[in-house]
């Protein structure tokens, strides 16, 4: 079953901006799906339409088969949303915020309090449950929005930049948390600027740019299509100039650092053999860039080129 399906979804704002230009997108139930795109690509508009925060101009969308035009209440019952911007009452306590949110989805207060304890504990907010939300740290506020979105145990959880501005440690523990939720059956759609995040978490991916989907694939298939990877080599002795090796594209970054572009058909042993012949001893090596980032940049910058 499709958790989300859109057909020819369009949005033109009053100022004439075409935010979405006929988006067709399917997300399977149980998927952990990445929706990527540069700023202004249409990600938040797409999510906004599905969650009723934005009115669509045309097309259709359904959530678990419930059309948002004809069965909006049912469709919205299936969705939990963690928005990009903070949107809870900063004067209320985390406990009040999550219990009320459950109520808006028909969860009685007694049951809501039980769930509130479960999710606030899991997201390490239980000790802060009675303080005004404005006193929480940035990371806590993000976690509060996740707890709030989970209160009605949605079938589809949509996270719009959930880890923006969150430090690395908290980000990684939030990843574990989201993986666990997904493993237990909740479909997750994630938009993020951290491509590493999408690469680590998501099984399928769509890249959106200028209001249209420009790529839709399995994450692994997309990454396999990458022809070239860049490696950073640290050398023992100082390099005065870039070693002259014809088959490989090398760059001297500083006297102890080289960068090498290795195409899919090339072989690292050959590179090391040639470097050895020139007397260059490699001490360590690492992959320079996030692979997804590379694909993403190529797709967005040159949509007519081959990946």
């Amino acid at each position, binding site marked *: 079953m499709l958790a989300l399906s859109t057909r020819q979804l369009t949005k033109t*704002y*009053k100022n004439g901006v075409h935010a979405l230009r006929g988006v067709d997108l399917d997300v399977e139930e149980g998927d952990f799906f990445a929706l990527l795109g540069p700023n202004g690509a249409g990600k938040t508009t797409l999510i906004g339409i599905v*969650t*009723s*925060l*934005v*009115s669509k101009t045309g097309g259709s969308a359904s959530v*678990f088969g419930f059309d948002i035009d004809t069965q*909006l*209440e*049912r469709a*919205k*019952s*299936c*969705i939990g*949303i963690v*928005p990009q*911007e*903070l*949107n*809870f*009452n*900063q*004067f209320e306590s985390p406990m*009040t915020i999550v219990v*009320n*949110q459950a*109520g*808006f*989805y*028909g*969860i*009685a*207060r007694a049951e809501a309090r039980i769930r509130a*304890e*479960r999710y606030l*504990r*899991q*997201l*390490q907010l239980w000790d802060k449950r009675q303080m005004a939300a404005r006193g929480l740290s940035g*990371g806590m506020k993000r*976690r509060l929005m996740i707890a*709030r979105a989970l209160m*009605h*145990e*949605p*079938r589809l959880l949509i996270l719009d930049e959930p880890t923006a501005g969150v430090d690395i*440690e*908290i980000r990684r*523990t*939030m990843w*574990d*948390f989201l993986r*666990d*939720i997904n493993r*237990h*059956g*909740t479909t997750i759609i994630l938009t993020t600027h951290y491509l590493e995040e999408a690469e680590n978490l998501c099984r399928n991916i769509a890249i959106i740019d200028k209001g249209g989907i420009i790529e839709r694939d399995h994450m692994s298939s997309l990454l396999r299509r990458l022809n070239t990877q860049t490696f950073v080599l640290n050398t023992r002795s100082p390099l005065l100039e870039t070693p002259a090796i014809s088959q490989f594209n090398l760059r001297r970054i500083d006297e102890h650092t080289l960068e090498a572009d290795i195409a899919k058909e090339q072989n690292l042993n050959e590179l090391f053999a040639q470097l050895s012949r020139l007397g260059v001893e490699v001490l360590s090596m690492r992959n320079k860039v996030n692979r997804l980032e590379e694909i993403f940049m190529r797709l967005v910058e040159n949509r007519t080129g081959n990946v």
Partner: protein
Amino acid sequence: MSSELMPSSPASSAPLQGPPHIAAQLPLGRIRWIGFQTIVIREYGRIVRIWGQTLVPSAVTATLYFVIFGSLIGRRVGPMAGFDYRQFIAPGLIMMSIITNSYGNVVSSFFGAKFGKHIEELQVSPLPSWIIVAGYAIGGVMRGLMVGLVVTVVSLFFARLPVAHFIAIIAAAVLTSVVFSLAGFINAVFARSFDQMNFIPVFVLTPLTYFGGVFYSVNMLPAWAQKLSFVNPILHMVNAFRFGFLGTSDVHVASAFLLMLLLAVLLFAVAVQLLERGVGIRD
């Protein structure tokens, strides 16, 4: 954040369950009813949490009115419509507090939700627009009636208040607070700033209230002013309410109730339509 409280951790106090997805299966009627209750409870919590701003000011204002207009000036005014002046103005002052508080509660609560973006909590929820409007309106009615009760108690320190028609008192208070709660909601929908939020209360509501027969009988006015006054819905509300206490009214009481009922229905329909179309909150 350490990993010890992550859901799959053995140390987690309540491991994450497989998602029963209950909300997606609940009857819509139940979702609406509990959602409505939740909005009302939240509004009640807001009124009580900031009681210094919501409940106290009207009591202070009413006391000042009674001291200055009732006791000091009122002594020289003499009887009005056959009643002691303080008795005459008491229902009007109570009604004035009901009007300003029911209106003010919804306009500030809904505009605050727009301004703070937490209106999105309701927008993304499965609750239909009419439930959201009804929830906010009941919040306004609660505050209007709570403040009305406080001002009634204050009034009893200054004037003896007979009860001629108890049902009329309750009906007029409830209907008036419904009408002005809904009007406050519509104001909040259109308001884009705190200035715009205050524009209607200051430049429309206050003059209409003061010319609505709170402090005088409309029969004291010249004929043309009387005709003009009858266009003012607050005149009808104040007089219907006064009829409940004193048994006297400057207007036809049944017409006054019909007017309130029609206004309530009309404003509810307008408010629901505005919310449905996302005016002021979408795009």
